[in-house]
């Protein structure tokens, strides 16, 4: 195998956890073979070498004012240049909003396809065999991109572990880039500080129509705060305007796989399950014992959430 190139994402110089997961998985699969990272941004050269600890032997670093904020065109040109210089068998991305945007643009530039949002991967000779959810997680497909050079693959965040392997990396400046960026990010508007993003959270407390009204989001937030969790929502309460679309989990919202997902007053419609069924531990609180959410729940309480959540918050605080 000619090696794996991993696109590593940063924001404000801070390396994203999901990228370290992808890099660690590349290191595991390469089993001692060549692994390199490609890293783009402005003023990021100093942190580039730290990727050695997660298995990158080399970091192709594009440090340029035009790359300060993400753009598909700019970043695709960077990754394409690193592909040219490194000649990998595969290019890995984390399937974040940026990874899912960038991987296909790069792939089309290189004339190949993408195995997207992969949840399991193995190497057979030179061919990566990947498992990925289809039909919103109602089925899984095993696929490969044999014959594609390189094989472009994005890994679902939080499925693979980020592990330090204790190596060090040589940092190589990528220059001679020709950047022509038409769709430009003018501004990155950060979400309110303290509001955890469901797409990244390790624990999610989600609310559905069972909370009765927008005033009761406060109760859900109390539980979320006690657990250091993000607040998720069913589409029903997003459409009712009780909470923002950014919080929606499901087919037409976000797909999440946290370690713990607590569904409060959510019936468990198939389109909601599409977004959260790959969570590691699922808890449901619902007063209807026949609610479909209990079919996917590892733990459940049949009861009124208004009676169950307050003592739960107390019990968590007492831990």
């Amino acid at each position: 195998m000619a090696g794996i190139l991993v696109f590593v994402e940063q924001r404000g110089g801070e390396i994203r956890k999901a990228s370290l997961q992808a890099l660690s998985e590349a290191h595991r699969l390469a089993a001692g073979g060549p692994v390199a990272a490609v890293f783009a941004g402005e003023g990021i050269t100093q942190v580039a070498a730290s990727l050695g600890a997660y298995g990158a032997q080399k970091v192709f670093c594009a440090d340029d004012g035009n790359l300060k904020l993400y753009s598909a065109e700019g970043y695709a040109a960077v990754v394409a240049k690193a592909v040219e210089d490194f000649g990998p068998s595969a290019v890995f991305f984390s399937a974040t909003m940026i990874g899912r945007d960038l991987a296909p643009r790069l792939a089309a530039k290189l004339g190949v396809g993408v195995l997207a949002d992969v949840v399991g991967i193995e190497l057979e000779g030179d061919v990566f065999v990947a498992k990925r959810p289809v039909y919103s997680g109602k089925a899984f497909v095993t696929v490969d991109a044999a014959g594609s050079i390189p094989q472009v693959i994005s890994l679902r965040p939080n499925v693979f572990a980020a592990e330090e392997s204790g190596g060090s990396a040589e940092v190589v400046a990528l220059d001679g880039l020709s950047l022509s960026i038409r769709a430009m990010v003018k501004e990155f508007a950060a979400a309110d500080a303290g509001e955890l993003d469901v797409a990244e959270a390790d624990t999610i407390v989600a609310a559905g129509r069972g909370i009765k009204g927008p005033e009761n989001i406060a109760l859900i937030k109390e539980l979320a705060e006690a657990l250091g969790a993000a607040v998720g929502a069913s589409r029903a309460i997003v459409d009712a305007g009780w909470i923002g679309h950014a919080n929606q989990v499901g087919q037409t919202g976000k797909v999440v796989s946290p370690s713990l997902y607590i569904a409060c007053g959510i019936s468990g419609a198939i389109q909601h399950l599409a977004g959260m069924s790959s969570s590691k531990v699922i808890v449901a609180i619902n007063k209807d014992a026949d609610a479909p959410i209990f079919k996917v729940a590892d733990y459940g309480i049949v009861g009124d959430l208004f009676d169950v959540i307050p003592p739960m918050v107390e019990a968590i605080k007492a831990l």
Partner: protein
Amino acid sequence: MNCIVCVTSVPDTASVIKIGADGNQIDEGGIKWILSPHDEYALEEALKITEAQGGEVTVVTYGPARAEAVLRDCLARGAHQAVHVIGGEETLGDSFKIAQTLAAILKDREYGLILVGVQSVGTDNSQVGQMLAELLDLPHVAGITSLEVGEGTLNASREVEGGKEIYESPLPALLTCQKGLNEPRYAALKGIMAAKRKPVEKIEPSDIGIDEGAGAAYRLRSLSLPPEKGEGTLLQGEDDPAGAAGNLVKLLREEAKAI
């Protein structure tokens, strides 16, 4: 300004998925086919833009005979023209192949915007738009939830982890659309009747230089259903909610090691 909307026919989101006899596509028996939900936002936005600025909406699909129904649905909602590239029998198609086919159809057309869905239900790939933009050398923004189209430029935003990216781009451009962008309209009876009389342009892949058999970007090995989940632990919280809550927290701590 003319808008092109690429749409795809997918199983209704409530469908029960069964594995087909070949083991790598679904059993299509009993499936109800619908316009992919995110494509509704792309169509709605295109209709709004042409209503405000003039121009026509052309909907395009690459799919088997059944896909004509989604084109009729789009015509009924107000699209002006429809193009059907007949082929792509597989329900889990190859995105790169689809993007190449769409690029071959669209390269000589006149448009200010191409709008697609952020992701199709089924393949869940979220790729065709970005690939098509690259093949047509267009700027793109993926997964938009707001849009303003001005003279020769657009402003759009999309949600990413931890915030929002606010974009500016020249036209022509390609946008992938999702929920939050607008409220899609339904087809009214009048529209449905009118759609029956609107022509659908039919094209064979070979007419546009596409060899369906050649150059697959990926290979499906098998399709499987998710593993059955074992019985969960169910606590009764009607009579003693505080007791059940305490037990749950204890189980999450000691057994599941999740908190």
